[in-house]
C-alpha cells in the first residue's frame, strides 16, 4: 500500500484506487463463482449445465449479467418507493464494506484497523436491514414473511459467529485480522484449527475445541448468508422468491451479487481466522506477498466449493429447527468451548 502511495503522490487518488480494487475483485469473482456453482450443481445432479454459450458455457454468467442489466425496472404501485429503491443498495453496502478488513495478503489490506473482527460482525448486520426493507417495502405478504424470517435467522446466527471469533481472539490476543494471520504464519502446524503456534501440550488439549469452534463458525456463516440448508428466506418453492419477489433487473442483480459476494466473504473470514489466511501451508516454500493472494483466494474458494456441495446435499431446515440449532446447539457448545479454551490458555 505504501508502495503505491509513493508512486502517485496524491492521497485521494490512492484511496479511490485501493477502494475500487475489491469491487473489481468481487465482480470477477462472482462470475467465476456463478459458473462454478452452475457446473458443480449440474454434475452433482448427473446432468450438464449450459454448453452453448461459449465453450461449455463459460460465457453464460456474462450473458446472465447482461440480461439482468437490460431488464425493465418494475416498482409495484403501492410499494414504499424510497425503501424499495434503497434496499438492494444497503444490502450490497453491508456486503462490500466487509472487504475492507479482509487480509488478502501481507501487503494489502483495505484498512488495517485494530478492531477488524468486531467490524466484520457489526457491518455484516447491515444486510439484515437491507433485507427487512426489501421485504416490507414490496407490499407483498410473502416478501414480508421472507424478510422477517431472514432477519430472525441472521440475528440469531450472529451470536455463534461472534462467540467463535471471541475464541480465536482469546488464542491470538488481537482483533486485528492481519495480526491473526501473521500469528498463524509458518506452515500448516501453526494454523489455529490445529491449535495455533503454542507448546505441544497446550496444542493437543486445544485441538478438539478449536475443531469444534471451526465447524460451528462454518455452519453459522452458512446461515448468515442464507444458503441452503438455511435458505428459508428465499425458499424457492415456498415463498415464491421470498424478499426478492418484486425485484427485477438491476435491483435484483444487486441482491444476487451481494449473495455471491457474501459467500466468498464468509469463506474468507473462516479461512483468515482458522486456516491461516494468506500464509502458505508449507513453511516458506511458495510464500511471499504475491503468493499470499494466491493462497488466500484458493483457500476461500475451497470453502465456497464446500458450501455449494452442501447446498445440493441437504434439504432445507424448517424455521423452528433453524432457531433450535442456533440457540440450543451452537451457542451452548460455544460456551463450553470458551470455558475450555480459557482454562487451557491460563494453565
Amino acid at each position, binding site marked *: 500500500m505504501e508502495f503505491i502511495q509513493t508512486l502517485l503522490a496524491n492521497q485521494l487518488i490512492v484511496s479511490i484506487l485501493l477502494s475500487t480494487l475489491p469491487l473489481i475483485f468481487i465482480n470477477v469473482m462472482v462470475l467465476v463463482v456463478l459458473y462454478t456453482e452452475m457446473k*458443480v450443481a*449440474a*454434475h*452433482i*445432479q*448427473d*446432468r*450438464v449445465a449450459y*454448453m452453448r454459450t461459449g465453450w461449455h458455457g463459460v460465457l453464460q454468467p456474462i450473458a446472465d449479467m447482461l440480461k439482468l442489466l437490460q431488464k425493465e425496472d418494475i416498482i409495484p404501485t403501492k410499494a414504499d418507493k424510497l425503501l424499495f429503491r434503497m434496499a438492494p443498495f444497503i444490502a450490497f453496502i453491508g456486503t462490500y464494506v466487509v472487504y475492507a478488513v479482509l487480509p488478502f495478503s501481507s501487503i494489502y489490506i483495505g484498512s488495517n484497523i485494530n478492531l477488524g473482527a468486531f467490524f466484520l460482525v457489526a457491518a455484516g448486520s447491515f444486510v439484515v436491514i437491507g433485507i427487512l426493507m426489501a421485504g416490507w417495502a414490496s407490499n407483498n405478504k410473502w416478501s414480508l414473511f421472507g424478510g422477517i424470517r431472514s432477519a430472525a435467522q441472521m440475528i440469531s446466527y450472529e451470536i455463534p459467529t461472534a462467540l467463535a471469533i471471541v475464541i480465536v481472539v482469546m488464542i491470538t490476543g488481537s482483533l486485528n485480522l492481519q495480526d491473526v494471520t501473521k500469528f498463524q504464519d509458518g506452515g500448516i502446524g501453526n494454523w489455529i484449527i490445529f491449535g495455533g503456534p503454542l507448546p505441544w501440550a497446550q496444542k493437543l488439549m486445544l485441538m478438539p475445541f478449536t475443531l469444534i469452534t471451526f465447524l460451528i463458525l462454518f455452519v453459522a456463516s452458512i446461515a448468515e448468508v442464507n444458503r441452503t440448508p438455511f435458505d428459508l428466506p428465499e425458499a424457492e418453492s415456498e415463498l415464491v422468491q421470498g424478499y426478492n419477489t418484486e425485484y427485477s433487473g438491476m435491483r435484483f442483480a444487486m441482491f444476487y451479487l451481494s449473495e455471491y459476494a457474501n459467500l466468498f466473504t464468509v469463506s474468507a473470514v473462516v479461512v483468515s481466522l482458522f486456516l491461516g489466511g494468506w500464509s502458505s501451508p508449507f513453511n516458506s516454500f511458495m510464500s511471499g506477498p504475491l503468493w499470499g493472494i494466491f493462497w488466500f483466494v484458493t483457500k476461500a474458494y475451497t470453502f465456497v466449493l464446500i458450501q455449494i*456441495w*452442501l447446498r*445440493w*446435499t*441437504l434439504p432445507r431446515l424448517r424455521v423452528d429447527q433453524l432457531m433450535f440449532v442456533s440457540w*440450543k*446447539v451452537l451457542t451452548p457448545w460455544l460456551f463450553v468451548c470458551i470455558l475450555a479454551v480459557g482454562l487451557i490458555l491460563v494453565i
Partner: protein
Amino acid sequence: MSSIGIYFYNIFHSLYTVVIGMKITIRHLFTRSATVQYPTIKKKIPERARNRLFVNIDDCIGCNLCSIACPVDCILIKTIKSTPDMDLGMTSKNTRKRLYISCFDIDIAKCCYCGLCVWPCPTECIFMTDVYEFADFNRQSFIYSFSIMTAEEITAAQRRLKKYNDEQTAKKLLP
C-alpha cells in the same frame, strides 16, 4: 433414553448423516452425466415406436376402416367407384383394387398416435414410422394429403362413373 441423551444423539446423528449425504453427492460429481446433446446426437428410438403416420397409397383399397377406427377423426377418405372396364391394378396382397382414392387426408396435428388405424387395414398400407421431428410454423401444412390423383384425373373418373351409371339406368328402363 433421557432427553439430554436424545439431544446428544440428535447432534451426532445429524452430523453423521450429513457426512453420508456429502459422500453420495461427491460420488455423483464424478459420474458421467446422463444428458444427450440433442441436435448433434440423437438417441435411437425403439423399433415399434409410434410416431408419424405413413400411407402407401398404391396399396390402399379405400375400405375406410382406418378412418372409422380413428378416435379423433383425423383421417378423411373420399373414393370414386371405378367402372368395370378400367384396371386399377393389384395390391400387395394380390387383391383387385376397385376404388379410386380421390382424397386421403390425415390431419397429423389431430392425430393422437394411438395406432388404432394400423390394425384394421387389410393390406397393411397405413403404418407408423419413427419420424418425430416434423414441427412446422404453419397450421395448414399439418394436413398431409396422400392421394396422388390430379384434379383432371378426378374429374375424368367422375365423368366416367356418371356415364356408366347413366348407361346402366338407361338399360334398365328399356323394355
